[in-house]
C-alpha cells in the first residue's frame, strides 16, 4: 500500500512537471524546455563535483554554483542574452520543475545535476523554492530526485 501511495505521489509530481514543460502552459514564465528533452544521465559515472562534493547545505550550493549566473539576489542578469530571475518565479512554486532543470540543464545552462548527488540537488532546490520570494508548499527529497534522474518524464 505504501508503495502504491508513493507511486501516486510520483505520478502527481510528474504530471505537474509535464504541465510546467508544456508549451503555452499557464506556469510557463521564463525559459522553455527543449523540444526534445535529452534523457537525464545517472550520475554514477560522473566524477563528483570537485570541491563541492561534500556540500549539502542548499544555500551554500546556491552561493557556490547558481549565483554565478542567477546572481546573489536571484534576480538574474541581462546582457547580449540574459539569465532568468529565479526570485519570485512562479515556475519555482513546486520542486519538480527546478529539479528537472538542475538535472537536465536548459539551453546554455549545463546539466549541473549530473555532478551532484540526489541529496545536493534536493537541498539546492529546497533552498530556491523557499527563498527569494518563492513559497513552495512541497519540499524536494533525494528520493524524488533519484526517481526523476532514473525516469525522466520526457524522453
Amino acid at each position: 500500500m505504501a508503495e502504491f501511495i508513493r507511486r501516486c505521489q510520483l505520478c502527481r509530481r510528474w504530471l505537474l512537471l509535464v504541465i510546467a514543460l508544456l508549451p503555452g502552459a499557464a506556469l510557463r514564465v521564463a525559459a522553455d524546455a527543449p523540444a526534445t528533452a535529452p534523457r537525464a544521465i545517472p550520475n554514477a559515472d560522473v566524477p563528483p563535483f570537485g570541491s563541492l562534493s561534500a556540500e549539502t547545505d542548499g544555500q551554500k550550493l546556491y552561493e557556490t554554483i547558481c549565483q554565478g549566473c542567477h546572481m546573489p539576489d536571484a534576480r538574474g542578469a541581462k546582457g547580449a542574452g540574459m539569465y532568468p530571475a529565479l526570485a519570485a518565479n512562479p515556475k519555482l512554486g513546486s520542486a519538480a520543475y527546478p529539479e528537472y532543470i538542475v538535472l537536465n540543464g536548459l539551453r546554455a545552462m549545463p546539466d549541473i545535476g549530473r555532478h551532484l548527488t540526489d541529496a545536493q540537488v534536493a537541498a539546492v532546490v529546497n533552498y530556491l523554492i523557499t527563498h527569494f520570494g518563492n513559497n513552495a508548499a512541497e519540499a524536494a527529497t533525494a528520493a524524488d530526485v533519484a526517481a526523476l534522474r532514473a525516469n525522466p518524464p520526457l524522453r
Partner: protein
Amino acid sequence: MPAASTPVSRRDLLALIGKVAGGAAMYQAMAGIGLAGESGYRGPVSLQGAPRGASVLILGAGIAGMVAALELRQAGYRVQVLEYNARAGGRCWTLRGGDDYTELGGYTQHCRFDPGHYINPGPWRIPYHHDCMLDYCRRLGVALEPFVQINYNAYLHSTQAYDGKPQRFRHIQADYQGHVAELLAKCVNAHQLDETVSTEDLERLLESLKSFGALDADYRYRANDASNSRRGLAIEEGGGLSPPGEWSEPLQLSQLLQSRLWTGIASSHGFHTQPAIFQPVGGMDRVAAAFARELGSLIRYQTQVLRIDQDERGVSAHFTDRVTGAAGVAHADWCICTLPASILSQLEARVSPRMKAAIDALPYHASVKAGLQFRRRFWEDDERIYGGITYTNLPLTTIAYPNHGCNMGGKGVLLGAYMFGANAYRFTAMDPPQRVAEIVSLGAQIHPQYASEYENGVAVGWHRVPWANGCFAAWDTQKRAQFYADLCQFDGRIVLAGEHVSRIPAWQEGAALSALDACERLHRRAVAS
C-alpha cells in the same frame, strides 16, 4: 617483415607500452609510428564571382565573423557585420592597463596593469597545426612569438604530496620515466616479455628504455651522471677551479606514484598543446585588431541583435544601437550568424525547429582566468622560471608565467588561475575583488612572494561575460551525434559559424574553419540562385 619475427602487433605493443610506461611513453610511440592528426585547413579559399549586388549580413565580429567578412568581401559580396561590443574580437580578447570591464551583475573591474603587460581572458595559444589561424596571422601581419608550453623548471604541485612543496617538472618527469624504464627493463631481463616480444625487438626495447629513462649501464635509475643529466645536479658546476658538482637524489618511486604529480607530465602531450605553440606579440587581440583594421567600417559596433527574421527573399536582423538606444534593422540576401549558442538560443530567430533544437541543446562551459601584476618577476629572479606553466591541485589549476619580457627585470603579469568545472562555478559566483583576493591567497601556497609583491589583478568568470554567457560550447558524443549536423545545415538563408559549429571547440581554429566552410556553402548557394 615475416610474421614470425613480429609476434606483437602495433596495437598490442602500444597497449603494452601504455600499461607499463604510461600515457607519455605511449604517445611518444604513437607519434613515432605516424598516427598524428591532420589539419582541416585546405589553404586560403578563393571565392570568385559573387552575384551582382549580393549581400551578406554577419552577426558577431569575433574570429568567425571577421574571417567570413574578409573572404566574402573579397569574393565581391556587400558585407555588413553587427557587433555587440565596442571592439572587435569577441572571445579573442586582451585586458591591459586602462581597460574597464563590467561583468553581468554590474561589477566593473578597472585593469591597472603597467604598460606592456596584459592578460588574455580567452584564447591565449595558437598551436603549430592550426594552419588556418597561422595563415591569417601571416597574411594580416600579426607577429607571433613562442608560447612556452613546457617549462622544465616550472612546478607540479599538490597539497597532498611532498608536504605541499612544489616539485620541479624536470624532477617529476625524469624520475617517473627513469623508474618506469627501470621496471620495464627488469621485466625484460627476467624474461617476462619473451612470449610477447621477439628477441630482436627486446634488444631494441632495452636500448630504448636506457635512452627513455636515463638508465645506467645496468639498467638502473640512480643518483648518477645519467639521471642527473635529466633532473639536474644538486650542486651545479662552474668554471676554472670551482669544485665538482654533486648529484641530486631521485624521488622515491612509491612517493612519486602516490603524489599523482605524474598527471602533470602529460599536460603538454595533447595534440592541441604540443610545442611548437605560439602567442601573438602583445596579446591575442592583436589578431582581432588586424582583422578589424582590414574590415574598417564594415563592422557596426555597439549593436545588440534582438531578432533574426528571414523569408525567401532575404534576412533581416532587428537591433538596438547600444549608444543611442535607437532601434534599427539590417537587411541582406544571406546571413552568417556567429553569435554563441548561449546567446542565440535566447533570441527570436526564424529558423527551422531542427536548427532551433540544436541551438538549444548546447550548454556552455564555466571557466575563470585571472591576471595578477607583481612589482617584481620573482618567478624569474628567485626561481628561474621563464615563461611556461605550473600545474597544481589547488582550485587555481594553472599558474602561467609571461612568455615575453623574460630576464629583463621589472614588473610582470602572470596568469594566476585558469579554472574549469566546479572551481570555475565557485569563483564565477564571487564578486571580482573576492575572486582576485582568493586567487592571490591560494597562489601564495606555491609562491610565498605573492604576499609581498602583489600589486593588482583582474579575474574573468566566463559565465558573467555579458556577450558570451559561458566560455565555449560543451559538446559531448551524444549531443554531437544528435545535433551537430542540424546546427551546421543551411537554414533557408541563414548559416551558423563559430567554435560551436566546429569539431575543434574552444579553439579559434575551429571558429575560423567553420567560417570558411560557411562561406563556401553560402557562395555555392548564392551563385546557384
